[in-house]
């Protein structure tokens, strides 16, 4: 049962990887990385049950958090072309204040 789930996850991962390699636009790639992170979380869960020791489920949750924060950072780069603090002048130009 869990083996079937693992194989299904592998197929989903392959599809996501194909989109990541070929992806025409950058947004395709961001989405591919984000959903690959979700697949990682799911796979850690399935792997725990497959080996009969589902002790690592809480660690899978931490992966979900990392994935979320990483995607926010990438999208922030898209919006502002910078990751950290903007200088006051750039902020003035961006927001018009």
């Amino acid at each position, binding site marked *: 049962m869990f083996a079937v789930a*693992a194989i299904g996850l592998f197929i989903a991962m*392959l599809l996501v*990887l194909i989109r990541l390699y070929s992806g025409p636009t*950058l947004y395709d790639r961001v989405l591919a*990385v984000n959903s690959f*992170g979700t697949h*990682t979380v799911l796979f850690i869960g399935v792997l725990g049950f497959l080996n009969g020791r589902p002790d690592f489920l809480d660690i899978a949750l931490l992966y979900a958090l990392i994935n979320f924060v990483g995607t926010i950072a*990438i999208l922030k780069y898209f919006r502002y*072309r910078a*990751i950290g603090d903007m200088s006051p002048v750039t902020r003035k130009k961006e927001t018009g204040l």
Partner: protein
Amino acid sequence: MQTFIDIVLFLMLAATAISIVRTKSLFAIVMLSGVFSLLSALLLVTLDAVDVAFTEAAVGAGISTVLMLGTLALTSRTEKPSSHSNFVPFVVVLITGAALIYGTLDMPNFGDPNAPAHVHVGPDYLERSVEEIDVPNVVTSILASYRGFDTLGETAVVFTAGIAVLLLISGLRRRREDEEADEVDDNEGQS
């Protein structure tokens, strides 16, 4: 099933690495390297090294993706075509890889109870750490007590590096803000 999972994960890892080499868009390469470290984290999970896997995911897919994007904001976004031939680097990589594989040949098998790491001082630590240190987690007692000076040195090194980076970055930013403020003053004077 375990072998099958390992083989599939390694195939995906190799495909990602090849695609990193062949891609020219640096942004795509940052995304691909994030997936690369997620895949290696999965491989480490299958080896039962959950803590190492978690560090790999946090550093590889989390922090270094963000740092590389920050670098991309400062540099160009496409890779320059290389002018010299790739033959010599390829040979060097092949030789290094062969040497690494040769080095694994006389390593003990995975999970072998007679491996040197499990027969030398390991059992001693496992037996004595509870009465000597009185911490239930053996890893903590080894890191914080048996190897206390080592950990103190590591912490000092990381702390110094952090302070140095903070000093460098804050100096750079202040200078740039001064320059931009000067420019704004000039423009307002002209208009």
